[in-house]
């Protein structure tokens, strides 16, 4: 299921990046850091919708790096048991061809810290290959 979720992310910035383009650095860093990642709690972060607050940089004693706690809004996807999803076959063990589009119902999930696995079934009505 897809959600829009407010999340936060902490970025450390080396002093050499301080300057006029700092915000650019931070934004691109945020995108590259979070998009496509997965947390067990929220699921996969599909895309950052907007940056709510880039945060005030706090210079860390010792290293001189600045710490920005960035708040952003993102589209996340988390599969749930019983959910019907569409997907593309990636790896095949049985009859279906690779890259076919299938509709399946998730029957079980396993959530790791950084990954979510799901088992689905196509053995029900209206499930299976879709074209």
């Amino acid at each position, binding site marked *: 299921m897809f959600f829009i979720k407010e999340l936060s992310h902490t970025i450390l910035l080396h002093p050499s990046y301080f300057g006029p383009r700092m915000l650019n650095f*931070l934004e691109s860093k945020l*995108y590259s850091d979070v998009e496509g990642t997965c947390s067990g709690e929220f699921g996969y972060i599909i895309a950052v919708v907007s940056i709510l607050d880039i945060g005030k940089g706090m210079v860390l004693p010792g290293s001189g790096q600045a710490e920005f706690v960035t708040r952003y809004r993102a589209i996340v996807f988390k599969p749930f048991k019983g959910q019907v999803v569409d997907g593309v076959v990636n790896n095949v063990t049985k009859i279906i061809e690779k890259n076919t589009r299938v509709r399946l119902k*998730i029957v*079980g999930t396993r959530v790791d810290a950084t990954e979510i696995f*799901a088992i689905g079934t196509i053995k029900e009505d209206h499930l299976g290959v879709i074209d």
Partner: protein
Amino acid sequence: MSDVEDEAFMDNEEAGEEHEELEEERPKKKHSRRHEDEDEEEDDEEEDDEEDEDEDEDEDEGEQRGKKRAKHRHKRPAVNRFLDVEAEVDEDEDEEEDEDEYARDEFIADTGLEGEDDYDMVRRAADHARYDRRVREMDDRDLEQVAEDISQRYRRTAVRYTGDMSDVPQRLLMPSVHDANLWQVRVRPGKERDIVFSLMRKAIDLEFSNRPLNILSAFQRDSLPGMIYVEARSAKQVSEAINGLVGVFPSRGINLVPIEEMASLLQIKQQELTVTPGSWVRIKRGKYQGDLAQVMDVTENGEEVGLKFIPRIDLNPKDDVGLDGRKRKKAGAGLSSFNMRPPQRFFNYEEVVKVYGRKSVSKRNQVYVFQNDTYKDGFIEKDFRLTALQLDDVNPTLDEITRFTRGQDGTENETNVDLSIIAEASRKAAISVLQPGDHVEVFEGEQSGVHGTVHSIEGDVVTMEPVGVEFDGQRIQIPARSVRKRFKPGDHVKVMTGKNADETGLVVSVIDNVVTFLSDMTMQEANLREAAEVGTGTNIVGNYELHDLVQIDQQTVGVIFKTERDSFRVLDQNGQVRLVQPHQITMRRDSNRAIATDSEGHELRIGDNVKEVDGEGRKGRVLHTHQSFFAFLHNRDYAENGGVFVTRARSLASLAPKGNIMKLGNTDLSKMNPALSGGAGGMVGSGNIGRGPRDRLIGVSVMVIKGPSKGYVGTIKDTNGPHARVELLTGNKVITIDKEKLRRRNPDGSLEPLEKSFTSMGPPRSGGFGSQTPNPYSQGGRTPGWGQTGRTPNPYNDSRTPAWTASSRTPNPYADHGKTPAWDATARTPNPYNQGGKTPAWNTSARTPNPYANGGGSSTWGGATPGRGVNWDAAPTPFAAFTPGAAPTPAPFSMQTPFEYQTPAGGAYPQTPGVMAGAYGSQESQYEAPSKWLLEPEFSQKRGLVVEVRGTFGGGWHGGDFEGKQGVVLSVFDTHNESFESVARVRFFNPVDPLQPILPVPVQFLWPVHPEHREETVVILDGAQKGVEARVEAVESNNSMVVTTMDTFHVIDTSPDRLIRIHDIDEVGNRR
């Protein structure tokens, strides 16, 4: 034993003297002895008491007493020994009686209660009677009886001997405080036995030496690794004994074992090892390590057992196997790298023959012989020593046993298999797996098909609450082995036993009692019949986790790609798979900071998706990099090794779009901005500082001035904080010594302090950039601004530094936008180090006397070492201030030019000199008068210049007596000749010798005294108004004064350094 013999025996025992007495003077002796005996009797009583008391008293008493005692000793032992002898033999009761009799006789004789004749008579009669009786008895008994007696006698002694030993109560054998102690010594684990043996050898070796080991015993227990036990009276003896043994850690203490624990240390646990044919064992070592084997037979002594197990024959030998297949095979086995061991496979004649040739296998009866091993029905049959086998905790799995039962051709043969072990094991497992609240179903018995949750477990009985309409709250009790966990599709399960043991996965389907699940690791389906556990399977064993990079040994690291119950499968950097126990892992490695570059030279970071550019073109995600060379990748699509594979980092290319690579998102913002850290030659301090240059002092020739090595000359080899390692010229010895005790030794033999003198080290040593460029920063205190002993303003801190205040006049390149030139000037700025040779000033420096070069000889710029750790960004600023003085002014100031040009700051804006040219008059700078300034025409005619004597130490003018003295110059005598010193007559304010207030002083030791107060009359030392007298109008601060020239009334703002006080004096130097 006859009396005669006895007597003779007794006599022999007596001293010769007494012997004679007995033989010849018996009556007399008897008489005298009686008297003596009377005395003795008294003595006896005394003595008995005393004997109970302290024996030491004996020594204190007189000789006489000692004599008496000696006599007693004669007597008593004789009797006692006699008794002893008899006692040992312990004859029949009769004889004992006799002995008693005899002994009594003897005592009677001793005590001498009867008359001597009577005594003799009685005794002899008794003897005779006894003898007669014995003879009679002997006659009475038949020979058989005699033999019986003898044998009995013999037997009884033997029996009693052992009896004696065992009769001692165990309690009394226990160690007490009087016994030697047991000391526990820490040793290197695994070396305990060796160390005990070396102790033994050492003890034997030193046994007859001057200093034998004083330890009594030493032992080690296998169950207590890392320690040995030594029996000795004191810890000191132990430490002496273990001294010098390798692998012993006396530093970790030699601990006393409490007395009550001593015995338990030595207790041997009785091991009941039952090896019976048909039982299962595991092989501990070798190629078949861990393999299950079945006992076929046991040798009589129980040392060896014949085993039957599934062979591991290498059917893909690396070398060409032909003639010497066996040899090669052996060599392979010798490597014993069990990661290379072939899989278990039943012996197949055809296969083996195909690989190893027909000759290698011979057939006898039903048995094949191959490489000295016997193969029957596909199994290998081999004898093993019992020690090489694991007899307990065998826990054969069903899988293993079924392989045995199935045999080579898949036919079931139930013979010889004891399934009860497995039944037992699986039943235990079933119970241990269940927990209250588990969802279970009954799969056998009446209630088959019922499912519900476990309510409680008591022993083997499970109480469950079935789910379903008809049950409605009932609880039923079911044997634990009849229930099993219930699985639903989507459950995450972990396999407990069987082929897929310890795999985790998601259940795909449950059909009857077979669960199909999709393994997390391999993404392959597997079927299960065994009990499985629901729950999150962890991939953590010990401290290690799946996909950790672990260090296996010095050379080997690997990535865990599969975790098993208590071991890992690890893919090492050579691509070999190893089975590793957690304890075999040295450490987990963190490759987060490891740096590797891919084929395009881009940084390869963990988590990157990459692709091989050569070879198989595999894709994967970077798990780890190792030594910048190996990259461990992971891709679920590869079934092999759990999708983990190793490749060379250099053969990888990023899968990310090309243009993306240097895009910001890809860079690590928590590290140095690569755009900045590149180029900039001046950025010395940024990256290269890491290891730091070697200490300047290394290689310096020094002399020791204190301590036992005083006076020795050597070379510094290494430094460490306040210490230096000095290789002495003499003895070729390296000593470690405080730097304080060292003085730098110049080639001419003179000494100077170690630290400050690197400026005069002569030619720069280290090569590389700018080694020839005089670096003002490395001068430290010698920078003019610094060196002026506080009178000169510190240009770095003081806002009045010309560079700062004069920023309106001086274009300060650093002022704009706060950017330091190093940032953006990298491309444009001529690198001063590269063009050092071109700098005109550099070339001229040879002929231009460098003002800084003559300050006592220690401030030569030329000798500067390259700037180390200099922060070029911040430091250059003040040097802008130097520039102005340079260009326009002739003579002394021109030599500042080179200096200015050589600094990076100078290089940053080459136009500066021109700009500054006109601005000189009002410019101040740190100034020091040149040597022999007094000879300059402007000053040589002046009278009354106030001067100070400096630099006479070491140089020798009056041995420095006048150092620091001030005086006025009366006249200057210039010889215009180097060989004759130019001198000035100086009238000292406080002469050392009041009778000689005026002395001629060589001009090089005279230095100007600068004004400090208003209204002082001064002479300007340099600049356009050089030599002009002026008056101090105002003191702005200690580095700025406003003076007015006497004749032209020019107002000049200058620093006191450029001024010299002058007094109006009379003929003899008195102030007017």
